[in-house]
């Protein structure tokens, strides 16, 4: 709950800062401090230090799962600010508003992660998405940015409609919005309930860009300003998934047989479309967009498998995927040329950046020693026991092999090719590089000792 209060407060604060018209560097500092504070407060809450205990268990309940994920999100958000806050200035003039919106999004995260009522879920999702529409279109002069935001908005609103219809049907069948009372609901579910369930499944699938509801993703990620793409592709997606998982883990356990297979089917479709389409991409930004779809496919395995292992996997995946993707996007933002050729010969001139990028890519590809491997490992383990699990798992590892192919194209560009004359690499400040290496180190540590993170799930 600490995070909710602080985030709301800081969002308002940032808005006022813009009015006061103080220098950008100050604004940035405030934002970064704020985000750091969010992280610390969440960490403190884990140790039992609560600023204000909102006693509404039928609306929100902040359990360990929510706390750990919030800590991860705010931590990643902090690193994200450290790396990319300066780049936001390039997007447009409303510097501090961007921060404000991001803080508001964090408020949404809290709701999404700790809801016990479908109402809160709905509100949370909306609080997360509406600022994103704005951020996507933040680059006003840029047609691509406009187009992206409009597409995102239309489709987003559409899926909101679906979700509401789903919630309503569930409500009609159950007579309550609580996502807890549905636990262990026995007996044959009425068609109404099932229909509502499926509509919610679809709309959540849309939010986390699972095929065939993923079509907005590449365009939006591609069109939005890269800094914000990085935010959407990582934290937002992770949070949405966490909510997705929370909903289906709590709410519909008794209906599992009805939807589980579909979750499997969706994840297989997502893996195939995401990975296979990514192979052909030339622009790294768009490639990452597709790769994020592919990763969503893998996270979907967690929802397909459910259970404790899946929960841990979700946490691990949230951390590893966010860290790696934030790092890559942070570098990508500063590159002149977003195509693969733009990365040619990076290793020679910026060895440390290239080295950390390598670790990020390896992690995304799921190579051992990196957190990405363990995350995928957990997901596979969760899925393999489920119905038809083996087939799904085999497809997914084959697709993982495909993903290795396109991730390694970036590696090859960086290490094995010569820089083309016209492109010149940006100068990375030593601080930036250090943070980047910190991310890489975190990924490696989690890859060897995930226990240090996971043990916070249990007390």
């Amino acid at each position, binding site marked *: 709950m600490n995070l909710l209060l602080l985030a709301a407060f800081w969002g308002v604060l940032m808005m006022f800062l813009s009015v006061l018209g103080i220098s950008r560097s100050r604004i940035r500092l405030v934002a970064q401090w704020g985000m750091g504070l969010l992280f610390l407060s969440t960490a403190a809450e884990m140790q039992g230090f609560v600023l204000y205990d909102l006693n509404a268990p039928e609306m929100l309940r902040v359990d360990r799962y929510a706390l750990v994920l919030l800590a991860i999100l705010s931590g990643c958000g902090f690193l994200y600010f450290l790396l990319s806050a300066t780049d936001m200035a390039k997007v447009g003039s409303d510097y501090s508003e961007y921060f404000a919106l991001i803080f508001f999004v964090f408020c949404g995260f809290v709701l999404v992660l700790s809801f016990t009522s479908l109402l809160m879920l709905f509100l949370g999702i909306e609080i997360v998405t509406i600022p994103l529409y704005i951020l996507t279109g933040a680059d006003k002069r840029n047609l691509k940015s406009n187009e992206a935001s409009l597409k995102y908005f239309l489709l987003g609103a559409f899926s909101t409609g679906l979700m509401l219809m789903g919630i309503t049907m569930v409500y009609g069948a159950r007579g309550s919005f609580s996502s807890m009372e549905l636990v262990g609901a026995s007996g044959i579910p009425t068609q109404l309930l099932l229909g509502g369930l499926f509509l919610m499944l679809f709309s959540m699938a849309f939010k986390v860009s699972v095929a065939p509801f993923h079509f907005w993703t590449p365009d939006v990620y591609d069109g939005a300003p890269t800094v914000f793409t990085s935010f959407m592709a990582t934290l937002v997606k992770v949070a949405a998934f966490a909510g997705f998982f929370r909903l289906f883990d709590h709410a519909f356990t008794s209906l599992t047989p009805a939807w589980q297979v579909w979750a499997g089917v969706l994840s297989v479709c997502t893996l195939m479309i995401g990975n296979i389409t990514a192979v052909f991409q030339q622009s790294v930004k768009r490639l990452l967009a597709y790769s994020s779809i592919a990763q969503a496919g893998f996270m979907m395995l967690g929802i397909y498998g459910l259970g404790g292992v899946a929960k841990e996997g979700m946490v691990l995946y949230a951390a590893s995927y966010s860290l790696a993707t934030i790092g890559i996007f942070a570098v990508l933002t500063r590159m002149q040329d977003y195509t693969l050729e733009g990365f040619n010969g990076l290793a020679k001139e910026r060895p440390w950046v290239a080295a950390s990028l390598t670790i990020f890519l390896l992690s995304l590809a799921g*190579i*051992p*020693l990196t957190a990405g491997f363990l995350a995928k*490992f957990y997901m596979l383990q969760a899925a*393999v026991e489920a119905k038809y699990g083996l087939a799904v798992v085999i497809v997914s*590892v084959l697709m*993982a092999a495909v993903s290795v192919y396109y991730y*390694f194209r970036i590696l*090859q560009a960086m*290490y094995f090719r010569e820089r083309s004359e016209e492109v010149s690499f940006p100068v990375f400040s030593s601080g930036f590089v250090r943070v980047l290496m910190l991310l890489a180190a975190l990924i490696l540590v989690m890859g060897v000792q995930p226990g240090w993170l996971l043990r916070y799930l249990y007390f």
Partner: protein
Amino acid sequence: MIALLLVLLPLIGGGLVFFLPRPAAVRPLSLLMALSTLCAVVLGLTLYAGIDSWSFDAEWIQPLGARFTLKGDVLGKWMSMLAALGSVLSVLGSWNTDRKKPQRFYGLLLWMQAGMTIVFLSADAFLFYFGWELALIPAYFLSSIWGGERRIAVTIKFFLYTFVGSVLMLIGLIYLHGLTPDGSFQWQAFRNLELEESKQVWLFWLFFLAFAIKVPLFPFHTWQPDTYEQVPTPVTLLLSGVMVKMGVVAMIRWLLPILDIGVFIWSDVLICLAVVGILYASLIAIRQDDLKRLIAYSSIAHMGLTVAALFSLTGFSNNSNVVLQYHLIGFQGVMLQLFSHGVNIMGMWLLADRIESRFGTRKLSELGGLARTAPTLTIFFVVIALANIALPLTNAFPGEFLQFNAIFHAQSPYRIVFLIGSGLGVILSAIYTLNMIRRIFYGETNSATENGLRFSIAEALALSVVVGLILLFGIYPQAALDFTNEYAWEYVKSIDITRFLTK
């Protein structure tokens, strides 16, 4: 303690070398590291031979139940010795060749060794998989940064091919892990599963593909010649000398004892594959003009024989001591050949590298007459090449001799066919080896070869070590056999599937 040392020395040493400021000190330091690992092995074999000094166990990833367990059984000791030897040889062999960024090169090389050592020693499936990949990643970078002109396409093929195999194995591991009562990855836990036939039949393939690709076995070998052709030779040396053995070791430790029924059901198919592979690879080698590719194919053929022998060991002994005795004979052959082939092929690569770097070509058709201009090279080459085709009094002879016995005793209706088929390999190997010798060393010299080559001390040292081992295990193989005998006996008893009948 020793086991941990064997993993840590190259790991840390690799790190040191990797971040070494001055290139000048790189080779001595990495040689020192490799040598110290070798010394550690030797110590482990002599003074601290006890199992407690060879086993290490620590909590690792509790949520998964994965532990950091190293257990140096005789197989592990034997192969980690090969790994240490391999890195020593590859450092020595590349002593005089200059590379850009030598720190990175040798650092990665040592890490590769660390990975392979983990594979050889780990008694925990998860750790095993870790090492399996840890050995692969440095190999990939080594190959793609320092390799030949077609390196990028070739190495990605190599990486993807092996990666697909290993992820399939990963699924198998996860599945078994799910079946274990205490949710552990320990070898013993897997071993105790005693799965029913219906499961083993398909589980087998998940593991087998990974190993078969690594070995590589006949239809899955196409990555190998390209890779060996493109990869810098010190790496090839480790790849073919040691890494390839990972596949066989994995079969020995993770396939036969755990999925023994599955193995037995498919053994005919597998031996058949292996034998076809022997003939197939040998035939290609006969028509091969590229020295490196030729060696690569010969290696495929020889590993094929080893695998065929290995899979001939499965079956029902009905507790008859005699059958087990013959399985013992065959398995001893496999153990011996694992080491011998490693040594021989490493020697071959050392020489191939020297020839290429000196005369600027790998094409047999562009060489010739070296016997007159480079007698020392000739002697080394002929000795090692003949050892490679298992001439008596060289180290490969006892190994292959015993392996043929194993095939002869395979519990398969086609064992005579298998025996003759693999035997024809002996003839074909003679053909291609002699052709190779004839075309490189005999005949008239040409502009390239008329001024011969001489070896630096380091190279001469490396080669003498190889030849020394060839003669040692050729004339007195009993030394090796005694070392492995007890383990082998326990092993053949453990993979006997008669116990399933009695259940």
